């Protein structure tokens, strides 16, 4: 339950900060939530990872469907040399997740005494 709350809260705070701050505000969100809600480092990592994986993945998916894949195909060709929308969505989700996970891990270590 705590894990689930952390994931949801991280996603919500990331989204809110992202509306006003640069992209790296997701790191602040994941870090902050991990400090606020103590979890074991491993769990904290996965909650940050999953929160941003779903947030960035689902946002990208939603935008992509509304856009009828016009831009995702072009950008995919540009940076991963394949016209695959799904791959670029996965890459987006993974980059967000990596930042989220590592930031949450740092937060967990800051909070945890032993």
């Amino acid at each position, binding site marked *: 339950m705590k894990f689930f709350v952390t994931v949801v809260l991280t996603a919500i705070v990331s989204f809110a900060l992202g509306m006003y701050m640069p992209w790296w505000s997701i790191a602040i969100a994941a870090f902050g939530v991990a400090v606020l809600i103590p979890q074991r480092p491993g769990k904290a990592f996965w909650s940050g990872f999953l929160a941003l994986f779903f947030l*960035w993945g689902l946002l990208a998916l939603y935008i992509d469907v509304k*856009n009828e894949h016009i831009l995702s195909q072009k950008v995919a060709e540009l940076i991963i040399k394949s016209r695959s929308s799904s791959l670029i969505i996965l890459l987006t989700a993974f*980059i967000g997740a990596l930042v989220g996970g590592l930031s949450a891990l740092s937060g967990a270590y*800051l*909070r945890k*005494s032993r």
Partner: protein
Amino acid sequence: MRPLPFLVSAIITVSLLFVLNKKLGQAPPIGNFLSPQHGFWQNAEPADADYNDELKLSGLKDDASVYIDDRLVPHVFTKNESDVYFIQGYLHAKFRLWQMEFQTHAAAGRISEILGENPKILNFDREQRRLGMVYAAERSLQVAEADSATREINDAYTAGVNAYITQLKERDVPLEYKLLDYLPEKWSNLKTALFLKYMSKDLAGGEYDFEYTNAKSLFSAEEFEKLYPLAADSLDPIVPKGTLFTDNAVALTIPVNADSLYFAKKDSVNIIESKPDPDNGSNNWAVSGKKTKSGYPILCSDPHLSLNLPSLWFEMQLSTPSYNAYGVTFPGAPAVIIGFNDSCSFGFTNAERDVRDYYEITFRDSTMSEYLFNGKWKTTQWRVETIRVKGRPDFIDSVAYIPEFGPVMYDRKFTGNNRANGKNYYACRWKAHDPSNEIKIFVGLDKAKNYNDYAEAIKNLHTPGQNCVFACKNGDIALWAQGEFPAKWKDQGEFVMPGMDSSYMWQAMIPQEQNPHQYNPERNFVSSANQLPVDVKAYPYYLGGSYPLYRGIIINRRLAAMDSGSVTAEDMMKLQTDNYNVFAEYTRPLLLKYIDESVLNDVEKKYLEIVKQWNLRNDPNEKGPAIFNLWYDSLQVKTFGDELGKSTYPLHWPEASTLSEAIARDPGFSFLDDIRTSHKETVVDIVTYAFKTIIPSLQNTEANNKLAWANFKDTRVNHLTKQVALSRLHLPIGGGNHIINATKVDHGPSWRMIVEMTPQTNAYGIYPGGQSGNPGSKYYDMFVDDWVVGKYNKLWMMKASEKNDKRIKWVMKFSKSSNH
């Protein structure tokens, strides 16, 4: 806290953020670029995007409405003229901001600032500065600012662009800014002037002074004349042969020492300039009401330019209480450029005249602080160009200016990628350096009610010289080959000229009224396709230059053959997209006459048969054009390659018509012989050998299924950055060089327009792009496929009363902000 794991984890996290936030090589900062709330995803416009908007902006004088139709064409209705330019600026920025800025950065030699350290790009930037692009724009701006009407237009346009930029959030900037990692800056009237100079360079930057100088030292005067004849035999000029011209031409003095210091001087210049595309050209014509079915004139215009995404053009209607104009506009400048209003229509083709010459300057020493002029040492002026380079210190380039001529483009400090010898000093005299007010032409045409208004408006056109076609609902048609052109003595400026005194300077400009023109001619049409404007024997001024020949011939032939009272807009569409190859009509009989079939094997005969059977049309599926083109190219190489190969210096290849006409005139044409062999080759030897040489390449092409003309040519529309992912490739379209449908690889009809000047105007047009410059919008390349197959969009001059028409999809309401 667990200090060690925290430290390790924090360091890894911060390093990751750092890497993801930084531009690595060509790749954009990947964290920001992929962020769905900041990066490229924000540019992925919903397919059902809503363009309705209500804007309160200071800078507007009154309320205004913009009705946007189903093709994303804005119809702007304002209550005064100033507001129409303000909103035009706003909309250009909304739909095309990146390209407007990029093109003006390119004009100003500021690409290093965006792309960072790269010797080629720095060289480009330096060349732009040294050509005096910024200097020219500043001088034109002074004139524009001194004219209160133009200033008001420019100020309103700039304010409109900036009203958009000011409210633009970083996450909403166009995709290209995110890819290249920079941000837009504010617009200014100077940027508008720079954009117009960008067009001037594209259209009035063509000459072969250095190449001809080299050829002069390599060939005798007689040989030179054969390689680069002044006019082709088959020329059908813009103003027909037989027309009489004034005999009160400006008298010109040929320098007394011209024979020794100029014509006979053997000198070589190892410079390859960056040049505009030699294919920059266009077609335009107008047919009088006597020829048309409706009884009213029809005007057609299709400018041939580099085909890019986002397109150079943006379609708009500008409607004010004083005038109402529709057509294509330049994102980067106010007014409608090619289009029509409620009375008149207008279009342009390039005049192709040589208005850029080089002078060799004698400096006292290598500091270049004093130069010799009319027997005295005079003090050089300097202009310091600061080129910013992303991530590096500025590059400072001091450019010497000779007031009598212009900037010293090439010197010891700048050889153009080691292309110049670095010993001589060449100053550039370019007509585009002279101040002019181009905005006045377009605004004047947008408002023109009759021939006199048109004739008055185009007088403002100095550079780039254009053949301006005109048609009016009152029945008038006209065409002026307009520009401010230097009056030159024969061969003046074909070669690098001595710059030690005033004797080689331009002595006068051709008086405007002596520019070639036609007004309601007897043949009931006017036309131009970049050919020589006149019969050179009859016109009192030397024209020089290099002019395409064949499109003019076929357009005039077709128009002349159309019966009176028959011509419709559909006929004009067919003509504008016609793929008939008149060059091949002249040349194929020569090739077939001189090829020796007895020495051909079966494979060779098979390909020859295709050429024989070819219907002379460059349609997408024809196989004849590829074989014919390869054959003729091969023939040119076999004919001229040996002579031109004698020099390592840059030389200009003769025009395509030169060899064809030479063989038609004299099969013993001296250049046919291969001077590297002891044997004397005849036309039969060379034509046959040229054909045999292309067979391996033909077999290869056929094996790859590329013999069909569209596959062979492989037309594409490039994104301005040449990124393949953002371009449109492999377009199945015919046409090509010498053909009315002048579609080449990435160059061709950038806007096709047909306007029937009936009481209720009927107009059609299309360009190979789309109204949105955003690669993430479905409107980005919306017109490309229709353009390929020769379809047109109906151009709708909307009336204010039609705001509920079903074609209107969105409304942008502009109101003036009360804070000001």
